[in-house]
């Protein structure tokens, strides 16, 4: 369909999304030197052209089709995406000015074209009373087009020396960046050797440290957690083993029910069997995330996410598939339910003895796409016809949310009723369904529950046939339809961008910015700049990701090294509203998720709290966590309920750890290695100095702050401690023993004659309630 067809239907959103994702097209001839050089006068790009003509009209409207590879690529007007080619602005002005000056019946061709005249392939793209049209009309008028003399306008040249986007933004110190990276990626504090390396070599040392971090087991916990936030496969319906169909795994999927437990006393067997079932279910539930871990851990191309011709199984889940015996020797520990190895399944045979069609005799694995878990997580129905799966495919693997900007229809009910088959006949429906339904058709061999189970009557004839965008699935590839899709997905430039966006989400906890859509909005230019700066990063990283063989670790490293990840503060107040809009999304500033917070507590205190990720999960959900089923989006801002949990956490973690730490030998202490509870503030200058040094250590360990003893925050904490001790001294009835609940070690309440144990506990409580601890 050409651009006109799409626009006649009144629905551009799909085109926008697709074209937005097509920015990585490999060959963009307009970027090369083969283009004629722009006329000298056209190099003088002014602010009005850059911000108004191009920013609000050209880029948003004309570029959709008038670009290399676009629907109007062979027209006289060819424009350049300035996001990727910063020098393209002058060429775009030249091209638009040239068309603006051409007259048809005394009027600029440019204006007539956008009104849909002169057989414009895209039809009418701007109404004559729209803001966009007025912008173009002014541009035309100032060129002296439309038969008039050039309109006089004060010069407003484009300031080429515009400050960089991050001008005035303070970046993390190398030590703080190191801490952010180790905590985020590996759930630990930096090692001394790492701190020393960074102290000596600065950011240069970070590269090697990141390489090491990305090999640590803890990174893969984070990786699995992050990708589950995106794919949500842990939330599929039913018990873990229900991904294995009765039809194909009847004899094996419930193996735990028949497993020999005779070596156990009879009274213990039932409980052991329940436990066995729980472990087995978890083992099978984790398989999709284990696939992701396997690809990344082994530096395999991440395109295997949709192309892997294998799955990961453990000794327990392999039993469910009925392949344990043949794999047994390959496991290092056949009793480890969570040791995963890759394997390929043979073509599935059903209870009647019929084997699925396969040219290779093997199940046609296609990474996540063909895993029963993924298919079950996004089920279908007789009326949905795999459209949910198609939608999720676009969202997960090509970064396109087809439901984000749904097209408004004048009367959707009337459209539904007017056509016998609206999705193939009604233009309003066809525009989307012609893209979605072919992908839905590729999933046709899988039934409602995600099992292999083609419809008895064959796939629906009243839908567009199986395929991917403009390519139809040939009959010979029918048996491997999802492999076929996976191959095309992997080589689609949108795949790399989508994966970078996923990593960005994992690192920051929020999605990438969307382009601003309201050109009337006063901060449009600022928001556009913010979007473009971020988008440029995403696409550059994606290019390197693809060029480097799709190693996902490279994406983590690239993003961690980016200014977006390292931005930490402002050197000066940014009072200008435009500048504030530009910086609105800058800075990591992420409220730690329950799991991340537990890991941070473990890293700082040596032991996790355990109440944010316990089996009940009540606090986890209250604290903004997800269950991967009903609750699938994490809270990003703390409610009052979360504020209460933060207070409980601060009180309780301090309660558990402060006195305990003091009972350890100084060299083994995490919190108080250089101070004893008999050092009391105000007793001597030396005592105060030691206390300040202890506070410096606490700030560094708990908050990651690198401060001197004279820092105002250290002083604030010192005053808190001193104030508490002073209050205790003057208060009546204060015991000389520590609290029953918090200063009791091995059933003995510790002496606390100067109230110092309790005061230090107050200090740690205070630190744990702070932004620098609770946020990343």
């Amino acid at each position, binding site marked *: 369909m050409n651009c006109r067809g799409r626009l006649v239907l009144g629905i551009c959103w799909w085109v926008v999304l697709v074209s937005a994702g097509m920015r990585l097209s490999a060959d963009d001839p307009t970027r090369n030197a083969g283009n004629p050089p722009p006329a000298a006068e056209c190099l003088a790009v002014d602010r009005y052209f850059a911000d108004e003509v191009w920013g609000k009209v050209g880029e948003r409207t004309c570029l959709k089709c008038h670009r290399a590879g676009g629907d109007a690529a062979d027209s006289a007007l060819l424009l350049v995406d300035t996001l990727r080619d910063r020098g393209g602005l002058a060429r775009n002005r030249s091209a638009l000015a040239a068309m603006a000056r051409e007259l048809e019946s005394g009027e600029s061709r440019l204006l007539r074209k956008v009104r849909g005249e002169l057989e414009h392939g895209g039809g009418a793209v701007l109404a004559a009373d729209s803001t966009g049209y007025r912008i173009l009309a002014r541009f035309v008028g100032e060129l002296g087009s439309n038969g008039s003399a050039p309109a006089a306008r004060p010069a407003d040249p484009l300031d080429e020396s515009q400050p960089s986007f991050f001008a005035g933004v303070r970046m993390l110190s190398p030590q703080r960046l190191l801490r952010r990276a180790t905590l985020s990626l590996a759930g630990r504090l930096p090692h001394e050797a790492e701190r020393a390396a960074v102290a000596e070599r600065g950011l240069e040392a970070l590269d090697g440290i990141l390489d090491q971090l990305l090999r640590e087991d803890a990174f893969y916990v984070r990786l699995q957690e992050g990708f589950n936030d995106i794919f949500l496969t842990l939330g599929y319906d039913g018990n873990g083993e229900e991904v294995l169909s009765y039809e194909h795994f009847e004899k094996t999927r419930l193996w735990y029910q028949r497993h020999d437990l005779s070596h156990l006393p009879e009274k213990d067997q039932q409980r052991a069997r329940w436990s066995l079932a729980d472990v087995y279910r978890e083992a099978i539930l984790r398989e999709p995330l284990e696939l992701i871990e396997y690809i990344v851990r082994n530096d395999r191309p991440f395109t295997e996410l949709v192309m892997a011709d294998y799955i990961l199984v453990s000794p327990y889940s392999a039993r469910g598939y009925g392949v344990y015996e043949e794999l047994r020797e390959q496991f290092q520990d056949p009793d480890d339910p969570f040791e995963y190895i890759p394997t390929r399944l043979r073509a599935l045979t059903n209870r009647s003895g019929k084997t699925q069609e396969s040219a290779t005799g093997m199940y046609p694995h296609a990474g996540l796409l063909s895993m029963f878990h993924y298919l079950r997580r996004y089920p279908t129905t007789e009326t949905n016809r795999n459209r949910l799966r198609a939608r999720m495919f676009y969202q997960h693997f090509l970064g396109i949310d087809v439901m984000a900007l749904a097209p408004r229809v004048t009367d959707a009910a009337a459209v539904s009723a007017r056509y016998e088959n609206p999705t193939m006949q009604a233009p309003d429906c066809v525009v989307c369904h012609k893209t979605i339904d072919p992908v839905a058709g590729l999933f046709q061999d899988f039934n409602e529950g995600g099992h292999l189970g083609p419809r008895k009557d064959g796939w629906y004839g009243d839908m567009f046939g199986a395929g991917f965008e403009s390519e139809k699935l040939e009959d010979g590839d029918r048996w491997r339809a999802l492999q076929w899709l996976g191959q095309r997905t992997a080589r689609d430039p949108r795949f790399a961008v989508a994966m970078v966006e996923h990593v960005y989400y994992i690192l920051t906890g929020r999605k990438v910015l969307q382009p601003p859509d309201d050109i009337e909005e006063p901060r449009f230019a600022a928001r556009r700049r913010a979007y473009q700066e971020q988008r440029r990063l995403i696409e550059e990283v994606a290019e390197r990701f693809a060029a480097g063989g799709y190693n996902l670790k490279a994406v983590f490293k690239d993003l961690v090294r980016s200014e977006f990840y390292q931005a930490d503060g402002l050197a000066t107040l940014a009072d200008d509203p435009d500048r504030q809009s530009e910086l609105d999304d800058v800075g990591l*500033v992420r*409220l730690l998720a329950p799991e991340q917070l537990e890991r941070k507590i473990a890293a700082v205190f040596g032991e996790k709290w355990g109440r944010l990720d316990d089996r009940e999960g009540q606090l986890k959900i209250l604290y903004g966590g997800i269950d991967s089923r009903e609750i699938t989006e994490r809270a990003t801002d*703390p409610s009052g309920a979360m504020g209460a949990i933060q207070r409980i956490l601060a009180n309780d973690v301090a309660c558990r750890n402060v006195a305990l730490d003091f009972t350890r030998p100084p060299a083994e202490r995490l919190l108080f290695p250089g101070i004893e509870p008999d050092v009391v503030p105000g007793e001597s200058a030396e005592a105060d100095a030691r206390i300040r040094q202890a506070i410096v250590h606490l700030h560094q360990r708990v908050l990651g702050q690198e401060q001197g003893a004279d820092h105002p925050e250290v002083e604030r904490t010192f005053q808190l401690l001193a104030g508490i001790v002073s209050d205790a001294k003057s*208060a009546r009835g204060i015991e000389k023993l520590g609290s029953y609940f918090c200063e009791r070690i091995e059933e003995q309440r510790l002496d606390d004659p100067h109230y110092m144990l309790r005061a230090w506990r107050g200090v740690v409580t205070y630190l744990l309630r702070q932004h620098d601890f609770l946020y990343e």
Partner: protein
Amino acid sequence: MRRRDFGKLCAAAGLGLAVPVALPWDSRQVLGHTESPPYEGPYFVVVNASGGWDTTYLMDPKGVEGINRLYQAGEILTEGNHHLAPTAAHIQAGMSNEAFYQKYGSELLVLNGLDYSVNNHSPCSRYMATGKLDSLAYPTFAALVAACRGPSAPLAFLTFGQYSATGNLVPMSRVPYLPSLNRLANADAVHGVAQHPYHDAFVIDRIEQALQQQAADRASQPRLPRVERAQNMLYAAQFNSKALQRVTPHIPQSQSKERLSQQADIALAAFKGGVCVSANLSIGQFDSHANNDVDQMKLIPELLAGVDYLLTRAEQLAIRDKVVVVMQSEMGRTPTYNNGQGKDHWSIGSIMFLGPGIRGNRVVGATDEKQFLVPLNPLTLETAPETGIRPRPEHIHAALRSLAGIESHPFSQQFPLGVPDAERLSGLWG
């Protein structure tokens, strides 16, 4: 701290943006460590029938053209000005239409012929929740009204599911279990037992003072907008959380069994405690592509029983006269049955309201005998097939903002609905 800086801190605390709005607190409350005053209403409850309800089995009965298999046109009942589908004979549990209308018909406002414009759950849910179809940035009405009317309330916006975007105006609170509130109410006591505080009172006072001083000092330092917003919201969340103690006296001794009633208990306790402005309640499974009648006859009565519980319990808590209830779904069901005895998505539906400021015993708008929308004159609220408008979610939301008294609030203006004055349903509430 300068008054201007402190005001900025207060304004931003509990809000997502440091914009010039009326301060939620008097500065003395924070400086003096006193709690923010309880929010005393009105309270807003949006009840979602998630998945798409069959309006012809509730407030827009047809009984013709094969639209309904459980009754014919002649069996349609009336209650005051309402027409309702007869369901008492078809349900196993919950509340029948007959009982619901008999009890609440005089308070109930129904709008039939609502144009959802699209046919998919995701955009429809977003559209119904926010009044804006083509943006992911808009807040739900429940979030918006919470941000405008009670941003310092610790659970200002409660949600139990369905589309819950906040527009970065107010934190979203999820409290899925009633006992959770008890646990949180005494955060400074071991196991929540007030007699066993973690710290002596003077220690807590010192900690709070230090945190407050720190927050005040930071207000005058250059910060990235995200940092400023996050630090202010964190401070507000912890400070405001103390007000959760006001909730515990209103938590029922026993937990309800029904889905909606469980949510209602939490919301009502939070309302009564003055810590909540709005709640987004939801029950799912209305998406009856198969066996429509069986499913709808189970779910509609469950929904009505839940609303009945909400209102009855609100009466017991003496806040019934402050509770505004919106009952909605993201789509309707087709006028025809599919081969699986189900009904598919239909872009025309209905919405129901009751509460203070809403004159009941009224039905506005209509669908025809084939369940197509009949346009509405926005001024007279009479049907006007030739000249009327198609009432859409933005019209409803504009009216809801007016009802809630927030239409001119800066937050509302930040998210304009684009409804021309000539299309405003200004007389909707009667």
